[in-house]
């Protein structure tokens, strides 16, 4: 079941040896069930911090994050997380990397394998179940990471610059793939990116954070029709939206 996220006046400050570093300030927004929201901003604006708070990996110093109305206290199987690096275990095959979350939860082997097979098909990696991560390209490894995040059937998928380490072509293709996977799996998705074009192409809503501390300077609805093909980026509507986002980041 797709989850609903709510960031309620979230603020966060890191305390370093040489002083306090404010990362986020008064961040409030809602993510409707089944929608795809992208968070953009210059590097160091606290995007990843925000995502870690939503994932329950970090406790905010102010405010709270809610999932379906209840506070997020720690990592939950309702939330799947994809990092910038694929973070696969090099000693496990693709299939066994996928089933790791299920193994940790004592799901029986037959079910683990069935779910892995379904996800391998969903992310388009048929034939690679027995491959080791060293044998995969960067794009393929990231597909495995997305599939692993989905294996719990989480309801919410959080992606922290998942395509940041990939080349431009692979990145475009995986963006379209993500849309397909999102529509097929029916999750609520929050993705952090530093690419304006990628954000508008993918999202229902784009949230722009200002630099240090990160504050919301724009919460923009993207009314482009779906399904979206790659050439939507050349439309007039797309150009107008990216101009607004760019202006907000620069402000």
């Amino acid at each position, binding site marked *: 079941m797709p989850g609903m996220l709510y960031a309620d006046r979230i603020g966060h400050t890191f305390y370093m040896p040489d002083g306090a570093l404010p990362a986020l300030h008064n961040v409030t927004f809602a993510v409707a069930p089944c929608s795809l929201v992208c968070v953009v901003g210059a590097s160091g604006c606290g995007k990843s911090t925000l995502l870690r708070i939503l*994932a329950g*990996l970090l406790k905010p110093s102010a405010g709270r994050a809610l999932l379906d109305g209840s506070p997020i206290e*720690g*990592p*939950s*199987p309702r939330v799947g*997380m994809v*990092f910038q*690096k694929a*973070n696969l*275990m*090099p*000693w*496990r095959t693709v299939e066994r990397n996928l089933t*790791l*979350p299920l*193994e*940790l939860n004592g799901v029986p082997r037959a079910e683990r394998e069935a779910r892995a097979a379904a996800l391998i098909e969903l992310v388009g990696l048929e034939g*690679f179940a027995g*491959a*080791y991560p*060293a*044998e*995969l*390209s960067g*794009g*393929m490894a990231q597909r495995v990471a997305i599939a692993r995040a989905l294996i719990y059937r989480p309801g919410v998928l959080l992606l922290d610059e998942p395509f940041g380490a990939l080349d431009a072509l692979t990145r475009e293709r995986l963006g379209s793939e993500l849309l397909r996977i999102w529509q097929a799996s029916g999750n609520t998705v929050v993705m952090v990116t530093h690419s304006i074009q990628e954000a508008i192409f993918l999202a229902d809503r784009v949230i722009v954070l200002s630099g240090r501390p990160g504050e919301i300077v724009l919460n923009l609805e993207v009314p482009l029709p779906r399904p979206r093909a790659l050439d939507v980026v050349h439309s007039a509507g797309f150009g107008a939206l990216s101009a607004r986002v760019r202006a907000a980041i620069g402000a």
Partner: protein
Amino acid sequence: MPWRWLVSPLVALALLGLWYGVTAADLLPAFMLPAPGDVFEAFYEALEAGSLPYHIGVTLQEVLLGLASGLGVALSLGYLLAKFPLFERILAPYIVGLQAVPIVAIAPLLIIWFGSGTQSKIITCALIVFFPMLINTVVGMRQVEPDLRDLMRALNATRWQTFRYLEVPAALPVLLGGLKVSATLSVIGAVVGEFVGANAGLGFMINSARSVFDTPTVYVAVFTLTLMALALYGLVGSLERRLLAWQRRREQPGSFAS
């Protein structure tokens, strides 16, 4: 290149030939270098009499028990040191100090404390094995990728699950490297112990044969010890090939990549 497998045996054959040549030409007196035939005869006699199997059994037992206990202590202490830096800061000088004491020098003390039976040899062996294994355990645990730790945390893994599913497999290549070094050192440890004071074992066999100028028997014991160390090393090697099969796939990166 199948001929590569032939090189090592050919080197052994050449050395054997050289040995034979030197003794046949009487270049060295027999009490220094006996002929290969004499050594083989001594080997056969010791085998027949049952003394060789007996001494092998004693030394092997010391080696295996010493290796096991040294590994056990090194692995658990290494894990704690890697996990708790404070613990490491307190203990590190003592551990390095322990390593700085030559084992050969304290072997007599160990005999005084634990007697001339197998116990003192097991302890000598464990002490010699301990340090390299400890270092490798700490290094192995430290090189676990922080990102993978994050992943385990995001998956709500327990401490035990993180140990079993992440730390052990991630550290395994380094641990097995340490085990290879330890396996050969363990034989040295047992022999050092036996040299200082023993009434059985291959080290004892060398000592007592030497005292009656039975050089062929000394050679028999030396070769047996070498073979024992090689066998242990080979055992760890095959364990490695089995456990780290995934690493060999790395040799052709991108072979599956699109």
